[in-house]
């Protein structure tokens, strides 16, 4: 069933070795209580390539298994380094799910800037009425309906790209597992969702250094909930204005602004922490490279969050030009983010991780 997934077909040796490593793990089992990967590995008798792809996408990179293992490279001929294996496979999985379109971050940036900047500039000149009388209004920069139209289009694009990735992941990997029916539901179950919201598997990760810490939990929470807050702010704004008829701009005590400021701040701090952690992990853990991390997307987050905050700030402090300038960059960054998101490991992992966890939860009903 799974046959067509040709990830690593030209890297047979690597996959063969990954299977070998997990086979050794399956006959050891000491790591069983660490994370969802191990009960899954130990539930089977032989390890297949397809299994390895799934395990890798279930892996949170806690690295507990690496530190507990008596067979790690440099100390033992078995050369076991599971975090290294799974990290490489995750990377390849994302490439495969997006038909290898993603390419290099540079290419992505170039493409998206090329797409976005002219559009924004076009609007800016076409609808340049920011100096017209009346209060500051975002719609003076870009009128409402074009804005809604483009946003909707981009949202549809993003959601369908992610849906395609999800469907491919299901078809190419999950369906090929033994006990395929555990894959069952397309939509994640309540247990899985609650676990994700609570960041159930984020405690005590050996990151960014060799010691256990909750730094990743911290910045992931901030980015995760910061993103949701920002989304909430946008949605509230839409509800206020279009359903309740309260015109923007909203006063600073309005829930729209409060959610916006909170979300923006959380995203900013979270992204900065995340960036710093990655850079320091590169120094402290030589065997882990940074390739699985999408710097571009985090930078985009950062620009979006900062310009969002600045837009609000300037409204109360600076001249109108500054508000519109910040807003313009804000819009551009959001669109760039939209366009690049489906190719970003950071966004793809949301889909793939959620589906893997869902399969795990269905397979391990207590």
């Amino acid at each position: 069933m799974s046959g067509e997934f040709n990830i690593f077909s030209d890297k047979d040796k690597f996959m063969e070795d990954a299977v070998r490593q997990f086979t050794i793990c399956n006959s050891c089992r000491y790591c069983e209580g660490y994370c969802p990967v191990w009960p899954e590995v130990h539930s089977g008798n032989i390890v297949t390539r397809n299994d390895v792809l799934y395990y890798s996408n279930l892996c949170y990179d806690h690295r507990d298994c690496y530190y507990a293992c008596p067979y790690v490279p440099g100390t033992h001929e078995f050369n076991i380094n599971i975090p290294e294996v799974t990290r490489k496979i995750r990377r390849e999985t994302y490439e495969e799910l997006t038909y290898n379109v993603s390419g290099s971050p540079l290419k992505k940036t170039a493409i998206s800037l090329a797409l976005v900047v002219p559009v924004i500039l076009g609007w800016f000149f076409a609808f340049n009425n920011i100096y017209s009388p009346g209060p500051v209004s975002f719609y003076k920069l870009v009128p409402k309906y074009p804005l809604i139209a483009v946003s909707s289009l981009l949202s549809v694009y993003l959601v369908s790209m992610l849906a395609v990735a999800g469907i491919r992941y299901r078809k190419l990997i999950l369906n090929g597992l033994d006990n395929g029916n555990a894959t069952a539901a397309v939509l994640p179950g309540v247990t899985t969702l609650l676990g994700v919201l609570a960041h159930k598997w984020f405690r005590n990760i050996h990151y960014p250094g060799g010691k256990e810490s909750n730094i990743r939990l911290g910045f992931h929470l901030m980015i995760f909930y910061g993103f949701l807050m920002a989304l909430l702010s946008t949605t509230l704004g839409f509800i206020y204005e279009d359903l309740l008829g309260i015109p923007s701009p909203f006063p600073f005590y309005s829930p729209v602004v409060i959610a916006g400021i909170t979300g923006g701040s959380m995203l900013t701090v979270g992204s900065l922490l995340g960036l710093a952690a990655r850079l320091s992990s590169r120094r402290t853990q030589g065997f882990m490279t940074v390739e699985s991390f999408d710097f571009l997307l985090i930078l985009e987050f950062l620009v979006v969050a900062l310009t969002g905050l600045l837009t609000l700030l300037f409204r109360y402090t600076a001249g109108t030009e500054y508000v519109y300038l910040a807003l313009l960059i804000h819009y551009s960054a959001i669109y760039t983010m939209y366009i690049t998101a489906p190719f970003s490991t950071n966004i793809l992992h949301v889909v793939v991780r959620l589906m893997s966890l869902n399969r795990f939860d269905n397979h391990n009903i207590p």
Partner: protein
Amino acid sequence: METSGYDIVVVGAGNAALCSAITASEMGKKVLVLEKAPENQRGGNSKFTRNFRIAHEKGWNGFTQEYSGDEFLSDIRKVTSGISSSEMTRYVVDNSGEAVNWASAHGTKWQKALRSTLHLDRTNLFILGGGKALLNTYFRYLGKFRNCRIVYDSELIKMNVENNTFQSLTASIQGHNVEIKGDAVILGSGGFESNLNILREAWGDATDNFIIRGTSQNTGVPLMEMIRHGAASVGEKNDGHMVGVDARSPKYEGGIVTRVDSVIFGIVVNKFAKRFFDEGYDIWPKRYAISGKLIARQPDQIAFSIFDSKSWGMFIPPLYPPIVENSIETLADRIGLNPDELRKTVTEYNAACPEAPGFDFSGLDGHGTGNIEPAKSNWARRIDTPPFYAYPLRPGLTFTYFGLKVDSQSRVTDVSGNPFNNIWAAGEIMAGNILNNGYLGGLGMTIGTLFGITAGKEASS
């Protein structure tokens, strides 16, 4: 580094040694730990372990059933033919829970019994991540003490003892011989399982075919040095814990993954395709601990576990793939046995299997063979459903029993029964005082922890 002025020198950095070093450091002593292995290979046999055996009540640390001290004691008696020192054995049983409490208090975490280790889930508590994770925690904790220093690549090569008193020791530290003085010494340096020369004295050429399951570091030098200085010994040099492991395993340090759990599901034959022991004999831990010794006594120390497709998937698969063929004859060919002989052995065995086997792996099922030599007293089920499977087996030496005689304070004693004044031993090096000719899974860690703490305390006071 300073070569004198230590209150206590601890030799080794496995579980027992670290328990001593931590205890002494907590008591404010100036401690030096000498570890023979380089830092990234530290931790001896302890880094390969997975659980502690402890007596406990229902509900303690998540156990769903009780394991009483009396049952624990009787299990020890079963495997040691009753000659173990009863005072020390009782001490281990009664305080086994304390070993776990101490480990927890020093950061060790636990997990539910691993999948397919059901026979141990009532008696043993599993370490989250296994022994190396436990040791990492101890090393990290010890790192906080400024009065404790650990040096790696440091092998004790000579003990200087006068009038039953430790004077100094010579260690080879990164290749340089250094004389180190201390007020007391604790030997936590394990057995001599990695010393092929001593093993050869006891086992002859068979040693060439042994696989050493654990560390390559435990050559028993501190142990033999003490014997040279007149210490009394326990156990026999040719006695050790040996299990059947995959013949394709590395010579050293294969650890847990090389063990082959398929033995009870079929038959085991030697190089002449003949069965040579009761594969369904007695309780799990006991049989487990003898299968290796039986193989060690077979020609060329080779054996093959043979079973059929009915049993595949019923045990934890070993790290190497099984040899699989559709007929007994081709299987024999593949593993270098005489096909007619193997066919004959399987046919005889099948004929002796009960009609309705009612195979039940969860306990002794009493379904033994009829008239056949040797009998298989449980789990006798025909080998008749292709494909047929084989795993090649070698004797896998876990550790040796021969060790130093100690008193109840874990102090080493001499041949006339007097204790050495300032020399203690803990762990495998003295486990023979409790288990002189048998073993129960999980006792090594319990013993090492308890006597490691005792030695640390006694040497500090």
